[in-house]
């Protein structure tokens, strides 16, 4: 388990949770925006989507082998008149992305559903089953940065989304300037253009949410 790489959105979800206290390091909105962009990123990596500036194109309508991305793809096909990237990130951030990712992680046994009964009703949250799991995506990137190694596309997108959501203030806090520069350099030069646009839109969406006081 420790060496396998999870889907991009799952990695982002785990990286966004504090391993010792099993709470989310991001606001629900920011997490939603990040996961929404991550799911779209997965579709790009599955070669189902192309992204150019703010425009999405479905290049292959076949479902993927994976329920969450298939669900998003299906939605995309159903709403063919909506093709703005920002609209889709915003839509997925309304809870859709988080729910899809939590379900996938639960199916893989990586998170479990916890119910807490309080005075004001029952609160449901998803808690990682193995605390050491939450640290792995970040560790993987940090190791690559320290060793000066190259990251593959999914991990590059993950790095970009970590930066876009502000998660880097936790995940990359131990990196030195030189190591951080190594990551930025890879993002600039090796991240394919469609995924660069996607990460850019995620960053813009997070910033716009801050400005509109909905972050």
């Amino acid at each position: 388990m420790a060496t396998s790489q999870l889907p991009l959105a799952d990695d982002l979800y785990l990286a966004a949770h504090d391993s010792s206290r099993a709470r989310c390091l991001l606001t629900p909105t920011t997490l939603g925006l990040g996961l929404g962009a991550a799911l779209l990123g997965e579709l790009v990596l599955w070669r189902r989507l192309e992204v150019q500036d703010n425009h999405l194109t479905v290049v292959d309508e076949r479902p993927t082998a994976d329920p969450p991305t298939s669900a998003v793809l299906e939605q995309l096909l159903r709403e063919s008149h909506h093709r703005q990237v920002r609209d889709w990130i915003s839509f997925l951030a309304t809870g859709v992305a988080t729910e899809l990712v939590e379900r996938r992680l639960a199916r893989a046994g990586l998170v479990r559903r916890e119910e807490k009964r309080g005075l004001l009703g029952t609160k449901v949250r998803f808690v990682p089953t193995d605390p050491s799991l939450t640290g792995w995506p970040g560790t993987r990137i940090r190791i690559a940065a320290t060793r000066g190694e190259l990251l593959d596309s999914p991990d590059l997108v993950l790095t970009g989304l970590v930066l876009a959501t502000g998660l880097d203030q936790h995940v990359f806090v131990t990196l030195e300037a030189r190591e951080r520069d190594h990551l930025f350099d890879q993002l600039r030069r090796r991240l394919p253009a469609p995924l660069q646009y996607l990460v850019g839109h995620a960053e813009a969406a997070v910033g716009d949410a801050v400005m509109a006081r909905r972050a």
Partner: protein
Amino acid sequence: MSSTSTPVRESQLSTALARDRLGVAAVVFFVMSAAAPLTVVAGVVPTGLAVTGLTAISIAFLAVAVVLAVFSVGYVAMSRHIANAGAFYAYIARGVGRPFGVGGAWVALLAYNSFQFASYGGFGAIAAPQFAAWFGVELPWWGFALAGWALVAVLGVRDVAVNGKVLGTLLVAEIVLVVVFSVADLFTPDFAASSAPVNPSSLVGAGAGALLVMAVTGFVGFEQSVVFSEESRDPRRTVPRATYIAVALIAVLYAFSAWAMISAAGGKAVERAGAEGPELFFNLASDRLGSTALHLGHALFLTSLIAAMISFHNIIARYTFSLGREGVLPRAFGRTVPATGAPKNGSLAQSALGLIVILVYALAGWDPLVQLFFWGGTLGGIGVLLLITVTSAAVIGYFARNPSGEDAWHRIGAPVLGTALLLVVTYLALTNIAILFGVEPGATPTWAVPLAYAVLTLAGVGWALILRRSRPLVYNGIGMGARSAGAGLSFRDVTSEAHK
């Protein structure tokens, strides 16, 4: 994956996004909490009476409301078409030019910071005697100011929104209190319905500019309604409606309350304001209302000042955040606190400035009520007035180049009329600074205030021109929010310094 068996008529995407959005009431609420009604009525009006000796404040509120309503027509129309709608500098950058846009950004930072610092002075000056009366706690004004500062500093990084339920309830209580006290004024023994507060000729006489600036300070915050352009239920209707409703409510509330106060003072409004200060608002109504109402009133006055502190802090933090993510200010300002979504360094920087100002005033022994609260508010009010005037001109410029499907009234008619009115008001304001600050003509504030804003504007223009040469991508992105073509990713032209 199963697919739905019934055909989906409405777009699920549109519905989901729409469900999440705000209506008119939410936006009006937000704007009014930024305007802090009780702070204006109990704080600005009596202090203004004492400092300027002018009583025609009610007609000034109504006149300014009309001017701002006309301004809002073009302003709200343009907000639909630009990113970063909550910041004047974006309008100026798009409609006049990027260099003046940056100039506008610096002016805005000074103006809004002045308002924020002013509320520390007001809070300290009001809390000190109150806490002494209630609890026998004897602290100098700056002790309370620092307590308020600490509260705002903590809430700022936690991004406590002013339209949260608690503060929303306080706002409603504030408004109710103002109405109740004003009505109580009508029944005081000395009440003599005065025509002085609503005398239109005072708007053309000496001191007109001072009255208008005082009135403008009461409305500051209304311009934030457009922040919700993209988050509102019906973009074409929600924001304009909310803006006009807020402006009208504010105007009527303040005008009525000020008139009631001045009438209840039986012709001695200015003298009593000089002697009693903000207590005038409470003393006038105390005849009819019990001590409970008075205590409640004082408590709400303090919470109103805190709400103003938080409001302006959030506005400034977001201005700074916006400038940071565009690269006009160091990108570090474009960072958030991950757990709360607060603009991290923007909030911390504003808190640092606020601390410095409080300490300077404390050490220099300057008066918190007149020299920090009133002067600070006036300085801010003049700045915002300048920004609104230039923004009004920018609206004309923007629509001249991009008609954007708006009709002639929104594109030209209202903006031209609004700009003309605003130019008159600005001229009157700048020539009345001596009256506003209660100083002799030619004294320091009369030239220091215009000079400060002029220097900031030129500094902004200069900085923009430097950016044009050294960082053209950033220059092109000025005022564009995150929609600029080249500036989609902050790590394109960033170093590790920015991501700390």
